[in-house]
């Protein structure tokens, strides 16, 4: 029984593991600190301007769910996996492995890009949800320790302002960003020139352009979701 025939499940699971599971620690640590930093910074500014910090949980959670959760997670994924995909495909091109695949009637898009695309979408979706949970937990920890708020009070305020449609929109963003990362990285990998310098250049260009495209896509999606 050939499991790799249609959807290449084995490669897809491999990429899900590499891109998703192995990225959990970096996302966990980064977003935990982002959540803490955001509550700290918002509390400072709200005390300065409004003389009150009751709405810090609400603002930080709304910002995290609507914007920072998917964007920071996918930027981290870009730096971690985008460069890797571009370099991997680029070096395969330099060493003529792509040509060898074509000679063996293996479509490089089917074999290399689709599993990475599915793995990246899976990673972006799962890590975004985890990042939101970790950031909210980090914010609650700081609110309890430093702002004199109880965890119940914190989450009551958070879930009064953050609605489930916001989470759905956040997941849509994650899917879009997660799709962009392997597509742009693969594009740069396939267009890589000859030589090891070209591979490095492809990896760098991939990360820079993916980051830029993610931020522009975030603006467009936010505009479509909330401004229209």
């Amino acid at each position: 029984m050939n499991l790799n025939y249609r959807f290449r499940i084995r490669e897809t699971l491999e990429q899900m593991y590499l891109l998703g599971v192995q990225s959990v620690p970096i996302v966990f640590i980064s977003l935990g600190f982002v959540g803490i930093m955001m509550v700290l910074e918002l509390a400072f500014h709200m005390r300065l301007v409004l003389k009150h910090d009751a709405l810090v949980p609400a603002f930080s959670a709304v910002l995290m769910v609507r914007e920072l959760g998917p964007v920071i997670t996918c930027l981290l994924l870009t730096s971690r996996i985008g460069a890797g995909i571009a370099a991997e495909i680029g070096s395969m091109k330099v060493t003529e492995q792509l040509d060898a695949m074509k000679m063996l009637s293996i479509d490089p898009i089917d074999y290399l890009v689709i599993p990475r695309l599915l793995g990246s979408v899976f990673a972006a979706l799962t890590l975004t949800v985890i990042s939101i949970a970790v950031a909210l937990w980090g914010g609650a920890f700081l609110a309890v320790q430093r702002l004199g708020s109880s965890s119940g009070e914190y989450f009551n305020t958070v879930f009064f302002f953050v609605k489930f449609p916001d989470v759905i929109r956040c997941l849509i963003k994650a899917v879009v960003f997660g799709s962009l990362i392997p597509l742009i990285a693969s594009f740069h990998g396939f267009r890589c020139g000859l030589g090891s310098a070209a591979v490095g250049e492809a990896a760098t260009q991939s990360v820079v352009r993916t980051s830029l495209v993610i931020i522009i896509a975030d603006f467009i999606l936010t505009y479509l979701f909330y401004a229209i």
Partner: protein
Amino acid sequence: MPSNAKSLSKEFWVGVLFLSVIVLLGIFAWLMGAIGPLQSHSRFYVLYNFAGGIEVGSPVRVSGVKVGKVSKIEFLPETPQSQQERISLKLTLDISVKAVPSVREDSRFYVNMAGIIGEKYIEISPGSSSSTVLSHGATIRGVDPPRIDQLLSQGYGVFGRIMDFMDQNEKSLTEFLEGMRELITDANKLLKGRDRDKVISLIDNLNSVTGDIREMTKRMKNPETQKFYDQLFELVERLEQIDKPVIKKFLQEEGVRARIF
């Protein structure tokens, strides 16, 4: 075999990650009120003419405790029935069955505001025990909140008219205020000047008179006085019934034409 074990391990961790995220999403949905699989709700429809900022998802509270949410807002077409009292909105409320015994026919559905930024919610006042509990699917007329924008607009109009009136009657108003000022000045002089003793004496006399009246009314409420009044009333009644013709005849014989009774 080691390769298969490693692959299985990867699949296992991918599955763990996937399931963790599904569980997290379920928790988010539950906390945000999108799902409530273990909680049954009762549904009511509340009619308003003006909802004052209520949105789908706004909380519903009974005695200040959150028990549900606004699940739907509909705009009603104008019907002959609604022409008498304009009703333009129909809100669907989903309320926990635990709170339903407090929601009765005489319960009132207010649009309230809470928190420092004024988030809106529907407050249901618990009904009296004599009224019946509202059944599932009942339609109730809510209490429209005051329209601040209209109040401001009307207040602006009222202040405008007051300003016009003052502009048109500036002379009369000046004279009136001048007269009031003179009156107050005279009263002040009266109280401070040589007639001060007379005023004090007058107030003392008034005080004494009211004291006497109070004493008199107090005595009139005495049981003995009450008894006297009753006897006097009885006497007059008997005189009227028994002696009326005799007295009348006597008065007529004496040439008196006055009508006494």
